[in-house]
């Protein structure tokens, strides 16, 4: 089984790599099609022709597009994403990313964990109490949670829990590299802001998956064999509901990571998302390319992980 799983993982990774390469191509060519000449953006219109030529040579801009793409991919594989053109002119994009990626990953993982914990509890409680008070409250909060854009939730959290109650820092983020406790505390509100809409949707999917699974034939069979409710809930209902639950978590990761972009900005977290926003304003193409690709790779990696978990949960997928 372990071997089968490994082979499955390898196969999946191969598929993902093709997708990643396609993604790289899309990002690259779309960026080239975007308005503005990178050389002029970097050097200014007043730059001399020699300077421009040197710049073009340095960044292979005078090669055919496809060659440029190949070189870009080759460099990217070595971790060389070029240098910032405007927002941090001259800095290696790799350095920028390496600085910020841990923060983004930390907040992202933190948010996933929060969302999963909240939804496991709320979804289970709601399904167990179907039609009751807890169910109504949980589903109502879930509906409200989905209806709040994350940046709006972010402000509500800041004003309520940071400035109002003073429980959490209102701004800034202590990197996990510096202090784990500090990052857990300072990351809580942003992670919660990202997690809230996700938790809401996870709760609803878990609730409906639990209810759905509770009506499966094998549950009735288990009852007919005299198994008790807790046994049935644990082994027949919850166990099987985890499959759609995990699948949906995988699908929602793209929204979750999208959420980090705005939330990083609001909470002053130096992550890939806020870097990308700055780069978007500055039309700093190398950074935008690298950020978009980084996010793509994260989603693809998460998908592999989710896929493996699903495979472990669901024998039919093996």
């Amino acid at each position, binding site marked *: 089984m372990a071997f089968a799983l490994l082979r499955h993982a390898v196969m999946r990774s191969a598929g993902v790599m093709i997708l990643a390469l396609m993604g790289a191509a899309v990002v690259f060519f779309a960026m080239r099609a975007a308005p503005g000449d990178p050389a002029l953006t970097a050097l200014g219109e007043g730059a001399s022709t020699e300077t421009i030529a040197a710049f073009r040579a340095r960044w292979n801009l005078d090669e055919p597009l496809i060659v440029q793409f190949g070189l870009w991919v080759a460099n990217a594989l070595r971790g060389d994403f070029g240098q910032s053109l405007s927002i941090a002119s001259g800095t290696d994009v790799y350095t920028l990313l390496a600085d910020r990626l841990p923060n983004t990953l930390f907040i992202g993982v933190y948010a996933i964990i929060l969302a999963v914990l909240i939804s496991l509890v709320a979804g289970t409680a709601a399904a167990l109490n179907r039609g009751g008070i807890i169910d109504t409250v949980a589903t109502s909060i879930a509906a409200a949670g989905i209806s709040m854009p994350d940046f709006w939730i972010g402000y509500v959290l800041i004003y309520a829990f940071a400035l109002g109650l003073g429980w959490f820092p209102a701004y800034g983020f202590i990197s996990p590299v510096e202090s784990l406790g500090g990052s857990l505390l300072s990351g809580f509100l942003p992670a919660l802001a990202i997690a809230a809409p996700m938790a809401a949707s996870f709760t609803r999917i878990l609730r409906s998956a639990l209810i759905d699974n509770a009506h499966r034939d*094998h549950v*009735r069979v288990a009852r*007919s*064999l*005299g*198994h008790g409710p807790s046994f049935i809930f644990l*082994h027949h209902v919850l166990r099987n509901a985890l499959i759609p639950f995990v699948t949906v978590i995988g699908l929602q990761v793209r929204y979750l990571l999208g959420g980090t972009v705005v939330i990083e900005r609001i909470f002053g977290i130096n992550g890939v998302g806020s870097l990308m926003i700055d780069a978007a304003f500055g039309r700093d193409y190398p950074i935008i390319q690298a950020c978009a690709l980084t996010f793509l790779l994260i989603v693809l990696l998460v998908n592999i992980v989710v896929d493996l978990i699903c495979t472990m949960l*669901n*024998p*039919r997928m093996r």
Partner: protein
Amino acid sequence: MPTPLLRVRDLRTSFGSGDRRSEVVKGVSFDLNKGEVLGLIGESGSGKTVTGLSVLQLLPDNAHVEAAELTYNGRSLAEVGAKDMQRLRGADLAMIFQDPVGSFNPAKTIGWHIVKALGRHSVGPSGDLKPGDLKAVAAELLKQVNIREPERTMASYPHQLSGGMLQRVLIAMVFGLNPKLVIADEPTTNLDNLVERQILELIRSQQRQHDTGVLFVTHDLTVARHLCDRVAVMYSGRIVEIGPTERILERPAHPYTAGLLATARSLEKRDAALYEIKGEPGATSWAKRCAFSARCPQVTDRCTAAEPTERTVEAGHSVRCFNHAA
């Protein structure tokens, strides 16, 4: 007469509530004795499956079951609490379902299912069992239903086995718990001819071996012929005829039973045209009429004016029809 294993009197089961409440079982009465196989025969909408589920209290929450009498071994099932009912299920009353594939949790191995069921009731040849022995007992049970490689089967997941195989496992599991009463709800409908025959044979042999009472729900008269001691024919929520299998197959008293038999016979006889019962089955009202009257070839004015009561044809054989002379 000894106390029947299962005694059902005026069982009524309905779904929904208020205006949308619909009665599916409309007053069913029968006895099932120890070691006896009773065939419950009917077409779609006749209420045969719901009757079985009502006995085991396995219906969804929106179902409402009433009965003048519903006793197992003299014990009223209506008064048994949820906890006790849970204890009765599996150990005393068990069920085999129509869809063998859906009967198993796809995420768990076959062995897990059997071991957990055995563990739940701590049963086995010697009575009490240590957890470690359960696997061996499970393997033994699988052997008894002619599964050649029990270990491999137990390590398999449900999707890796065929429907017939799964049904066999379920039968092994159910009879392995030594229940007194098994309700088999169309256990062979989804299976192929040869497998169907094997499964029927298996149920028969297990039933004999354990002296189990079986309520065999089916739509197929020919299946009943080979398996059942008695048959009860249901139409639109009621039993319209009940009696010993041979008696009913030879001399059906109800036009509906007769029609079903005629069709089956004309198939066997290779008639140029088959005997037809006109119209379509379905839940029809019994209020002040015979529900079968619209399709009945022998219908009279009386049939559409009043509800036919149960009449005895001869000892142990009764029918719900005006046209049968009492």
